[in-house]
């Protein structure tokens, strides 16, 4: 049995005084995992801390048994769509090609083969016809698919995705779910921050339910239970339920 895609031990993240995550220990099984929880539960924080994008107070994260720096080439990250400026003067292909940066020299032009790989990734999410369109002229769902294509172009073994299904159209939702299942069939793993509980049973293998700490974790059958959901979403002590996701 090879090392698990992610192994988190005692992860604590603080934003100033407030602890966003406290003592999170969790080992992901291969396959498609939904990270669930109310707003402010620390779902996005978990991904960002695992990838070293924000400082952690305590804890360790290993990917495939390796520390972050060594595992990086095997990881792909899909940030929240709202985290970037879509008016940016770039085409869909430009954005996807950014994923190929670590595979090339940093100076000079992008080699043709890398550009073709980016084009293939756009094709895989049904966006081949929009390669040269400025990203601000795409619909929200199309923008989300460009982000997914960029993650695919990283050719990773583990994908960390922050709400790729938030506020997308039906076509995009189906495309993204089909791509995710394709990845899992190809032996890849996906950790996905997710908010729509109705899709969990039909599409995911595992869940991690967070509310500042681990509420429940395991296969959908064992962990995605009424009591666990009630505990996670039933109100967090001292925290308003409307607070924005960190």
């Amino acid at each position, binding site marked *: 049995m090879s090392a698990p895609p992610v192994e988190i031990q005692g992860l604590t993240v603080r934003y*100033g005084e407030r602890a966003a995550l406290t003592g999170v220990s969790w080992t992901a099984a291969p396959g498609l995992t939904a990270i669930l929880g109310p707003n402010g539960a620390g779902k996005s924080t978990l991904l*960002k801390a695992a*990838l*070293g*994008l924000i400082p952690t107070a305590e804890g360790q994260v290993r990917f495939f048994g390796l520390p972050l*720096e060594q595992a*990086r080439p095997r*990881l792909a*990250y899909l*940030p929240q769509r709202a*985290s*970037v*400026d879509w008016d*940016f*003067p*770039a085409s869909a292909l*430009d*954005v996807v*090609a*950014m*994923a190929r*940066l*670590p595979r*090339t020299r*940093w*100076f*000079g*032009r*992008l080699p043709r083969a890398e550009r073709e790989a980016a084009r293939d990734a756009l094709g895989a999410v049904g966006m081949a016809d929009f390669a040269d369109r*400025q990203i*601000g*002229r795409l619909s929200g769902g199309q923008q989300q698919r460009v982000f997914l294509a*960029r993650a695919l172009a*990283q050719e990773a073994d583990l994908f960390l995705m922050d709400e790729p299904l938030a506020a997308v159209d039906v076509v995009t939702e189906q495309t993204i779910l089909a791509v995710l299942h394709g990845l899992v069939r190809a032996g890849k793993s996906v950790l996905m921050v997710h908010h729509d509980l109705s899709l969990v049973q039909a599409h995911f293998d595992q869940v991690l339910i967070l509310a500042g700490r681990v509420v429940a974790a395991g296969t959908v059958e064992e962990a995605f239970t009424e009591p666990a959901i009630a505990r996670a979403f039933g109100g967090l002590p001292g925290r308003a339920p409307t607070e924005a996701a960190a």
Partner: protein
Amino acid sequence: MTDFLRLDFAALLAAMLAGGTCGLLGSFLVLRRESLLGDALSHAVLPGIVVGFALTGLRSAWPMLLGALGAALLATLAITWVRRAARMEAGAATGLVFTGFFALGLVLLEVTGARNADLDIDCVLFGQLETLVWLEAAGLASLLDPAALAGLPRQLGLLAGVALAACLFVAAFWRPLKLLCFDPDFARSLGLRVGRWEILLNLMIAAAAVAAFEAVGSILVIALLVCPAAALRLMTDRYNVQVWGGAALGAGLGAAGVLLAGPLPAALGLDFALSAAGLIGTLAGLTVAVALQRRRRFQAL
């Protein structure tokens, strides 16, 4: 022709180099939504310039440039530190640090006596484009004559060096810079040392600000860093047009300001000349206004 070479050529070259360099690097400020940082860096370099001057006693370019780069480095680190330590919004941290550095620079000016040496308030505000002359020029042949070229104002050497460095920097690191501007979090997840890239970019901007400062003055440096890039931002959806177009527009504004400062008032029947630097600033502002107008009309269609 000889008159033009002797009196206007050096100023034209200086204004174009300053405008082009600032216009080029300004796009990265505007795309990163950090336009204030141009203002901040061009002020924060003052203590470095004074120290460079005080240590060497020379008003020559290189000690001042090195001092300015040192100050810009410290200011960049200080902004990052204040943001983290005080958990402060970027703009507030930037404002705090640059006023602090500028104040320190003013104190140093008094303490070191540099103020008495040469710091003319008009020069700080409007630069000294009009004083850039090439008296050794004796016709077009002088453009190829090393002895005559050696008589060009020394600011041109610094400006040309920084312009070349900025072009090479942008061309060589085209893709990492684009990623850094668009999605720094993703860049970090790829293993890019985002903090170091930001420092490098800020040092380039500081170098451009210092080189351009002597020619066109501090206010105009800020206008040239922001206006061409902001105008292009309204006019194009293409990254290469944004970046190189910003450089071209900056250089064009510089040229227009120098060439029109004399003839424009005369054509209007006025009996005074305009400050070239002032005209560059006015044109830069007008360009943004025109770009905005065009954009509005375009979107209304």
